């Protein structure tokens, strides 16, 4: 499905859509990753570095002797999140991904969530952050807890789940 950036003065506002709650969650995650890194596309992850006109500073957390041209190590992680409503589950899920990406220094490229009630288990895919390859992006400070309401929208071609999310940067 899709995610789309809307106008917001201070932060990033995204409208995310999916055919199922699971797809809505994975699209919301993709929206978030697109802010954090310039090259986070699943197709790109695993390819060699590209010249993106960016510059890397010092002490990048994951370049332990590796370089942009080496074969990327694919990483798979599992996360579990529980909440008190589906909307809050979406916020808590994104907050958990943010935590994993930062602490493990991963560029996340895909998520496969499985939702049961107000809890989820998800497989998260990514690779260690290499600045020359992934480019600089913007750190996300947090996910706004307001305005996130999951809507069910009926259109000609079926039902969509939609949410608008503010990422505080």
């Amino acid at each position: 499905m899709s995610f789309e950036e809307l106008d917001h003065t201070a932060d990033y506002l995204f409208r995310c859509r999916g055919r199922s709650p699971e797809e809505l969650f994975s699209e919301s995650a993709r929206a978030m990753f697109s802010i954090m890194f310039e090259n986070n596309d699943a197709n790109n992850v695993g390819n060699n570095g590209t010249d993106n006109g960016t510059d890397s500073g010092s002490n990048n957390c994951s370049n332990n002797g590796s370089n942009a041209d080496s074969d990327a190590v694919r990483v798979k992680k599992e996360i579990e999140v529980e909440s008190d409503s589906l909307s809050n589950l979406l916020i808590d899920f994104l907050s958990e991904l943010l935590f994993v990406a930062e602490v493990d220094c991963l560029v996340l490229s895909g998520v496969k969530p499985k939702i049961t009630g107000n809890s989820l288990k998800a497989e998260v895919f990514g690779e260690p952050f290499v600045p020359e390859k992934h480019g600089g992006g913007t750190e996300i400070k947090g996910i706004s807890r307001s305005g996130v309401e999951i809507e069910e929208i009926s259109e000609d071609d079926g039902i969509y789940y939609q949410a608008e999310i503010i990422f505080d940067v």
Partner: protein
Amino acid sequence: MIDKINKISDVEWELKEGFMPNMSVPARIYISELLAQTLEEGAATQLANVATLPGILKYSLAMPDVHWGYGFPIGGVAGFDADTGIISPGGVGFDINCGVRLITTPVKASSNEMPKIKRLITELFHTVPTGVGTHAEKKLNEKELDDIMNEGAGWMVNNGYGNPHDLIRCEDNGCMKGADTAFVSKKAIARGIPQCGTLGSGNHFLEVQKTAEIMDEEAAAKFGVEKDNLCIMIHCGSRGLGHQVCTDHLKEIEAATKKYGINIPDNQLACAPIKSDEGKAYFGAMAACANYAWANRQMITHMVREVFCKIYGTEYDELKLVYDVCHNVAKFEEYEIDGRRKKVCVHRKGATRSFGPNSPDLPGDLVSVGQPVLIPGSMGTPSYLLKGTAAAMEKTFGSTCHGSGRVFSRTKAKEGMSGQEIKEDLEKRGIFVKATSNKVIAEEAPDAYKSSSEVVRVVHDAGISLKVARFEPLGVIKG
């Protein structure tokens, strides 16, 4: 937007009670007609919503750099009765103790400074970890992190990353009382351990500037600022530690809002009584993050001194801290309200403390002048040093603006000039920019912000802080 608000003076406007339902005090906005043209309805609504919160005193306040934020508007100030009022993470923001410090150097900028500035900026860029996914050179252990959260900048100075004079020139001497690390989660600790001494990204920066103009000779002399000298400005906060603490406590406080039956017009205004367990827990964790942020800026200062001394041949202690202010915080302060001295929990969300002469917490040599106030410009625009005033103590809970404030979104900014074009344009104007990404440069385009000069003019004319000096950028590092 401006037609819906009442003019008090050229720089002060009011939203009366009734602008939004259940306001218990009016709202005041310090703004000019020029800046009001870009005032968003959302920001005014947020400002009015804050006026509905329990225990709010006098006014819900907005500074001229006001814009739409999370819960409280950015540029918002609100004081709550310490006995009956609330504390709200949305009134502080995700980046707890995001702040600014200014360091002066003994070096006069020459007319051909650019080659050396380029060397300096390049070296600083490779020394100070900047941007997404960077870790500090010194990895702390849990005990050290705990000590830092209790001791703030003082921990850094005691461990060789600064000098005692630095602490005198920090708000709260670089250490906020009341930190309680028991309320800082394991996740927050995991994020805090590798990041003390990193700049971050977005609007955070490290800038080399030249003192371009002195407006108040006496205050400038007291603050240690001389015309034409090179200065360094650092803008950053408590990094992932603060972000995680805000995320964790927002959830707790949201539940507390319901538990204590507090009616809020917007979930983002989730709050708890100051004296409740949840309120105390948030305050303790927030103060711990504030201390970490001061230590973070202190560590960066240490790196800056070492690099600067190597390139310019100066001594470490010749680089002096003018002051360090925090602009995202909630603090207990005392004010005279209706003839009575009251303890107030002041929330500053994108606003700077602006204590006037003879206020508490001012170092002895600055008691007669007032507190140094630092207002960073956006990339490529001037920054300002001001001084706090008695008028701020009366009108704005000792507060003033914090920066320029965005006028348009990052999306719109990216539709304009590319990062590379902006970089080249700035270099033609004598400003060398180094960033981890051209995307960040495009998003932080100077045009995306209000004019820092107009913002500062308004606070000066309103008397809530007075101009002392203006600084022009020569080199910028963006994360």
